[in-house]
């Protein structure tokens, strides 16, 4: 997948406003850390991310 294609795929994220983009990037990071788990428990962490970003 070349850079142009990746940019096109990620456009909805890169064009999102700052708070939304930060939330999504942190959600990606969180999910990436738990990706190896079959049933990761991430909801509380997700709520924390959103609460921290939207005060």
């Amino acid at each position, binding site marked *: 997948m070349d850079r142009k294609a*990746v940019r*096109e*795929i990620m456009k909805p994220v890169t064009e999102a406003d700052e708070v939304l983009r930060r939330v999504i990037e942190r*959600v990606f990071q969180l999910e990436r850390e738990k990706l190896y788990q079959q049933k990761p428990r991430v909801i509380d962490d997700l*709520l924390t991310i*959103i609460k921290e970003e939207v005060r």
Partner: protein
Amino acid sequence: MRLLSMRLHNFRQFEGSTPKLEFAQHKQNNVTVVFGSNGAGKTALLNALTWSFFGKFTDALALPEQLVNRRAIANATKGSTVCAWVEVMFEHTGNNYRLKRSKSVVRGSEVTAGTSQEEEVTLDVGDPTGHWQAVKQNDVLDRLGTILPSQLHSYFFFDGERIERLQRPDKRAEITSATALFTGEELLRRASSHLGEAAKRFESELRILGDVEQQKLIDRKQTVEERKEQLHRQEAQNEANLKGYTNARDAVEAELRKLETVKAQQAIRDHLINEQERLRQSMATSRLKLADLVSNRGYWPFLGGGFNRFLAIVSGLESRGELPTPMKAPFVQSLLDKGECICGRSLVPDDSAYQQVEAWMHRSGLSSIEEVAIRMRTEVERLQREMPDLYADIQYEKNHREQARDQLSRVEEKLALIGAQLRGSPEANVRELQSRLDSLAGNIREVQLQQLEDRRNLETVNGEIEKLEDEIRKVEAKTAQQALAMRRLGICREARAVIEEVRRRLEAHFRTDLAARISRIFALLSFKAYKAVLSPDYTLGLSDGTGGPPVGMSTGESQALSLSFIGAIIENAREFAASREGLPGPDSSAFPLVMDSPFGNLDPLYRQQICRHIPELADQVVIFVNRSQWEGDVAHSLETRIGKEYVLSYYSPKPDAQEDSILRFGATYSLVKHTGDDFERTDIVEVVRGHR
């Protein structure tokens, strides 16, 4: 992830510790070849890797429960523990790792019987500066999972003779899930699903906050405030009424003063009224003075015990000569600094005279206590002195109040008498004026009582308003929380929508992109003009380009297609890592491809094509082959790409076993040899390359 080396200990047919099997690293010589006859341990080596990383075995490994070398068990004494382990060194995103998985058995009464113990897995990580540290036991599997997810193990560690199984319908779900995991689709799916659950939590938070009664409270406060306004209006009215009644009373009294017949009585009454007012003031003053005495000095009588204890402590200090302090610390220090006592004796540190003078420092250290004690004793003595005055003052004010009350009572009696005399006056206008005075006095009393009641009501209303304002503030805080929860819910939903859109775009692009890559790689591996077709569930098929149904595949085609699929996935990951732009996906751009007997089912043409391209498919290729699989086209195609090679020398317990060997760079390496006992074993021997 790049494999660096592997070592085995008592693992399957590898007795004791093997030498380190190092994997080729060079970009142009990225192929590692391990030669071995059938049964020599090629599949065991592949499974040593899958077991160490994932605790899993391939379908090809017979009796996977028998991990510990049988001869090592046989040599052990009964009841002792025999351990098998695999140690793999690898590199991932700049860090080096040492992975070790081990399993022990306790030697039973029979040679092969033994009680298995728990597997143990450890992982150490070394950063680029060479500093090593152990990964916490609880985090080992997590860390390994992020380096190479276990669902993907069949992609990178596979049995070549069974590679086409990756295309079997029963493997489809696994392939779909593993591919989705690898491309980031799974991460996006999970992120979207988890954000959906998070949104539900925010919704329920909103429901809890939703039952606010702010408007009701505001309405109630408004009603109470109206009542307060009404009381204020009433207050003003009372004031006006009181003023009116008082003026009217003053006017009547002025008229009475003018009447010759009663002016003397009125003069007396005026005097009595003044006296009445003075006495009332005097009683009020006494009441205030008493209150002042009690609030300011009322605690004195309770301090007697405390005073006595304090004075006893101070006396104790005095009797010990600690009060007053005989000497001040700065003075003692100045003597020590000067090195001379007031008696003229020289003061040298550690000398007994010096120590004696220095000891005064500790006693003089009490100077701050002295200051406080003196101040407090003065105060205590003053309080003790003034204690009788307190009782006298209280008694005086009580007497004064009683006297004023008696006098007031007499004044009121006299006033009542004058009133009665005027009420009974023979003159009609006097009687009328007195009657008006009585009526006005009644009115004034009534207004004053009303004022009292209104003040009480006003206090209640003010308290109620304060309480309501407090409740409203709480509700406002709740409303602010509600607004915040709504914003959070909004962001949660928006984030989910954006992620869904990214997922849709990735899926659409990835499938087309992957199909194109597979077709391109397949065209390199196969001589047929077929195109790869990838279904939404990642089922692979071949199309002849006519638009008809997928064409049937031979074993060779199926194997070539599977390799194309893996090659395409790796190629995609490589490009992806270089241009990720925040899109989730694999961390690493390097992947190993470890293949056991990859060319067994291929005819020469496929074998040649695949061998030519396989070093390009992955960054690192490890191939386990027997001599017949290697010789010919395979050797011709791969020889120049080999970076490391090894021979598995198998020692057979069978006396009539056919011995075999392979010639590499002018040296002969045993593939099969006789062993002197009942146990088979395999040695790993490195081929010394470049010697002919």
